[in-house]
């Protein structure tokens, strides 16, 4: 897929299982919305094909596809009331008035908007508009529902509630959801399969657990949750070398002495007295986060983030222990060296300051 000669999607190859909740996750401009628009039929890729139940739908216009979309900012029709918005697709397919009424009423009930039939769209709150948008799409009984950052405009509380509700609706109707978001927490909480994208390419496809525990490169490790990403080598299977020391790990299949990226999640690191530590460093910053302390520890100039419930004051000299299964070893990639150092740590996590608006 190219725009004005600029490649925005490059060799996207993705199989989406029937009835799955699939999330396209990535930062702004990674091409996830474009991918969704190609599936929906609003954009034609410069090359490639879209298969639906085994047959190509690339030449099928949007209005003939058995796919419905919940748009970013909902795109509800302001000149119609709630009932007519939901009935819109049914009226287009010329169903009988009785059938339309039955299905709209049923849909209103399942999105908990009974009694809102005659309300104007402009008088609804964001969460209610959101539910109308979902009802308007689902009432047509599509085979696939596309959702483009549907919770982006809601506040945190409402977003959490809607996540649960969306997941519930998906399980009830039993159809495929393809969900686009830049919120990694949302992706992990809702999906069966997460597709992490960056720079127009798929970086990793897997279950939320796979993606979190076994990231394939530094980008995925950094984008999903917080990670310390370190340079190292693999002298042999089950052994990894960093900071001049060898650690035990559970990874294998690398070439002898292959340079690798090592991911250690901040919550997997245990703080111990300096004399028992595998590595020792100085605490340079402590931030109280409620559940834990964000502790920045300097190990020979490289700063690690450790999330711990034990308070270690700034300036204290501490040791750390890491269990073999908490060390994730990755092949080097173009992202190596870009992420994972907490030297410029600020109390805000990166994801929270990530741009809220999505590219067109």
């Amino acid at each position, binding site marked *: 897929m190219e725009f004005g000669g600029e490649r925005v999607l490059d060799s996207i190859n993705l199989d989406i299982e029937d009835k799955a909740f699939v999330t396209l996750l990535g930062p702004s401009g990674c091409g996830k919305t474009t991918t969704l628009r190609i599936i*929906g039929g609003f954009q034609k890729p410069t090359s490639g094909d879209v298969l639906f139940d085994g047959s190509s739908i690339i030449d099928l216009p*949007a*209005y003939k596809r058995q796919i419905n979309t919940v*748009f970013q*900012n909902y795109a509800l*029709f302001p000149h119609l009331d709630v009932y007519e918005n939901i009935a819109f697709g049914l009226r287009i397919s010329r169903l009988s008035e009785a059938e339309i009424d039955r299905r709209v009423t049923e849909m209103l009930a399942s999105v908990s908007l009974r009694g809102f039939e005659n309300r104007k769209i402009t*008088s609804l709150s964001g*969460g209610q*508009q959101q539910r109308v948008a979902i009802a308007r799409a689902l009432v047509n009984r599509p085979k696939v529902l596309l959702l483009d950052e549907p919770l982006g405009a809601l506040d945190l509380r*409402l977003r959490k509630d809607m996540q649960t509700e969306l997941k519930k609706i998906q399980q009830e109707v039993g159809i495929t959801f393809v969900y686009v978001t830049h919120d990694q927490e949302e992706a992990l909480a809702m999906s069966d399969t997460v597709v992490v994208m960056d720079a127009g390419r798929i970086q990793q496809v897997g279950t939320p657990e796979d993606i979190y525990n076994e990231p394939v490169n530094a980008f995925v490790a950094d984008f999903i949750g917080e990670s310390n990403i370190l340079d190292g080598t693999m002298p042999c299977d089950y052994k990894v070398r960093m900071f001049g020391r060898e650690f035990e790990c559970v990874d294998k299949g690398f070439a002898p002495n292959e340079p690798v990226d090592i991911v250690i999640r901040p919550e997997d690191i245990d703080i111990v007295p300096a004399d028992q530590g595998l590595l020792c460093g100085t605490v340079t910053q402590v931030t109280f986060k409620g559940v834990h302390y964000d502790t920045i520890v300097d190990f020979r100039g490289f700063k690690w983030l450790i999330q711990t419930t034990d308070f270690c004051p700034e300036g204290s000299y501490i040791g750390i222990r890491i269990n073999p299964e908490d060390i994730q070893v990755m092949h080097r990639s173009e992202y190596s060296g870009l992420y994972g150092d907490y030297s410029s740590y600020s109390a805000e996590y990166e994801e929270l300051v990530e741009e809220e608006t999505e590219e067109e």
Partner: protein
Amino acid sequence: MRKASKVVTVIVFLFLYVPIIVLMVASFSSGTDLAIFKEFTFSRYAELFKDTNLLLLVRNSAIIAVLSTAVATILGTMAAMGIYSMKGRIRSLVMGLTNIPMTNPDIVTGVSLALMFAFTGTVLRLQTVLGFWTLLIAHITFNLPYVILNVMPRLAQMDPNLTNAALDLGCTPIKSFFKVTLHEIMPGIISGALMSFTMSLDDFVISYFVTGSGFLTLPVEIYNYTKKPIHPKLYALFSLMFIVILILMVTMNVLQARSGSAKRRLRAGKEAA
């Protein structure tokens, strides 16, 4: 300073409205001398509605205004859709080109249209081309930019996903225009049409050049009257015209204000969420 500006404002409004008030008052006076208000009468209005010649002119003006507005509104809306679907540089170039005729002096537009009609007439070997049809074409021509200018911002404000949503729900592109886009841009279409109607109703300069003696509009004929003293029944006519246009303008503003506040409510709703 504040006092001075208040005084100036009052003076400006006096300049703007005193002539019309004088005209309206005169239309109710039974005397012919403007300086003296003799006694209140509706007889000017009665005379006006008995003058079949004058009423014919009013009818002509109305026919031209209604027809040219209808055609210009449809063509202009289609043109706006076309221009909107263009990309960046070309779009602003085309918008510039559609705006130029509006700033063009009427006399230039009038003479050039007259020349074009004369040329066409010679080519087609017609005796007289100037008349109803040339007048209608001319009015459509100068009304088009006003429609486009009013519809374009509406299209630009519209969430492009609304059209996508209609397509997504099974509308063909044409159906999605009538079911969704048209509703969204309707205020722009209406204000474009109202503006066209008033422009067309009071146009003298262009009409003067492009119509023949067979089909005269009110402003063209009244221009001929000014060479002799104006009959007071015209005061009545002008007062009525002023009121009609005023009503149209007020409707237009109310419509715009209303759709504006609806949009604001929608946005406010989203922010509150």
